[in-house]
């Protein structure tokens, strides 16, 4: 019987563990499977980000589909900052409030050189000023001093483009530059001082 012959001591000593080379097709198959796995992960893994679900592949894809992006998002952020820090006095419609604050819509301070506008919220403004042909003599505190340069830039960009205003955007870098140039100043600005800034 074959059972017996395999137990035959002679044939057991003859048995050797041979070296069989891995067949080439298996190596290729494993490589293809590995590659497919990585591609699949790339498309479906979302790099383990909890905000990425199928059918989206990555955060950047989700980001592109968000309601607003780019310049629009910046202005929207600006609107939010304006509503929380400035609108109380200047009004959500930018028309100001009699006896409290002058209008921002159509104001030369807002539409003029960015250096002037940035200085106003950074340190405040006091004394007589003229806005849209009307003289105001009040004092504005340094409302923007505590804001981040990005937030202040966004708010100023918003007031330069809302309510029919049509002036260029203000970047965070410009705000930072003015902050650096006026470091150490504690007094509010006056209209005469601002006039000398271009």
């Amino acid at each position, binding site marked *: 019987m074959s059972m017996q012959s395999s137990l035959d001591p002679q044939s057991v000593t003859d048995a050797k563990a041979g070296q069989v080379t891995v067949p080439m097709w298996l190596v290729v198959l494993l490589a293809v499977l590995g590659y497919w796995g990585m591609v699949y992960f790339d498309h479906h893994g979302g790099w*383990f980000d*909890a*905000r*990425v*679900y*199928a*059918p*989206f592949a990555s955060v950047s894809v*989700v980001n*592109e*589909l*968000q*309601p*607003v992006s780019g310049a629009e998002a910046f202005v*929207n952020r600006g609107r939010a900052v304006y509503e929380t820090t400035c609108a109380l006095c200047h009004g959500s419609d930018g028309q100001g409030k009699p006896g409290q604050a002058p209008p921002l819509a159509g104001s030369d301070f807002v539409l003029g050189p960015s250096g002037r506008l940035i200085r106003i919220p950074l340190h405040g403004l006091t004394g007589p000023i003229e806005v849209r042909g009307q003289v105001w003599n009040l004092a504005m505190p340094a409302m923007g001093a505590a804001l981040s340069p990005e937030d202040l830039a966004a708010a100023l960009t918003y007031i330069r483009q809302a309510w029919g205003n049509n002036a260029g955007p203000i970047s965070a870098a410009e705000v930072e530059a003015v902050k650096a140039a006026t470091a150490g100043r504690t007094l509010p600005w006056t209209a005469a001082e601002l006039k000398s800034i271009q």
Partner: protein
Amino acid sequence: MSRGSWIFILSLLGMIGSWFGTVLYPQIQLGRMVETRTVPDGQVYPVARPGLAAQGREVYRSQGCYTCHSQQVRQEGVSVGLAITKVGTNQTALVEAILRIAPQWRRDQVTAGLERLPFQVMDGVAAAEAERARRPLEAAGATTMVTVRPVGADLARGWGLRRSVAADFLWDHPVMLGSQRVGPDLAGVGSRLPDENWLLVHLWDPQIHTPGSMMPPYRYLFEVRPAAEVASQDALLLPEGKGPGPGKVVVPRPEARALVAYLRSLEAKAPLFETPVILPAGLSGTSALSVHAAVERP
């Protein structure tokens, strides 16, 4: 080292690796999840279910509704498009501009579309194309909006506006996702069937609104009482001829009311960062949404 210990160590590493990826890391991410905010309104989401609906969740659980209903809407992609929300002053120029960027329209279709705003000018295009098409239309005075509409078989059935995400289930313990769809998915049933009486009637006798339904009646969540004893607003409004007989009315027990409150709280349509949806007011997610509701509502 012998081959056996290598095999042991490598398979152990393999198992630790997959355990890390499929159990530990998701637990770290989702286990510590807190409320998020909707985009772009910034409302806190989700808010805890009101008391009655929270009780209803326990009824849903104890009745085993999840054995036949899932609560998990899937999505296959998004369709980006462009819609006009305001015409502006120069309608003639706008019509010309639309015909130039979207030649598939006929002039009379465009004019009719502009009468009924918002008007979906294009759909199923690349985001860059929609963004490019925007400029000539805005130049013609229109206000436009790039739309992002989730699409997929579940959404076409009207089961929701977008896919379900982990945030939808933040306040649910346990999360009853379900695994079989003997009946329709319920993740958005509160948006699709907000009518309390409709849902109660469906629990009392599913055949009334959906003849041939596989769902068993849940009569024991109701009581049949003499009409004289019951205030009319507490009784179920049943269609003619389906009532329990003359002088009798069907009154939902508190469990039935709680269960329906829970069902009505299932909405899962808040726009979140992870499921972008941009549609102007007045454009529904999938046109099938309204069709489905019209078929199922009495």
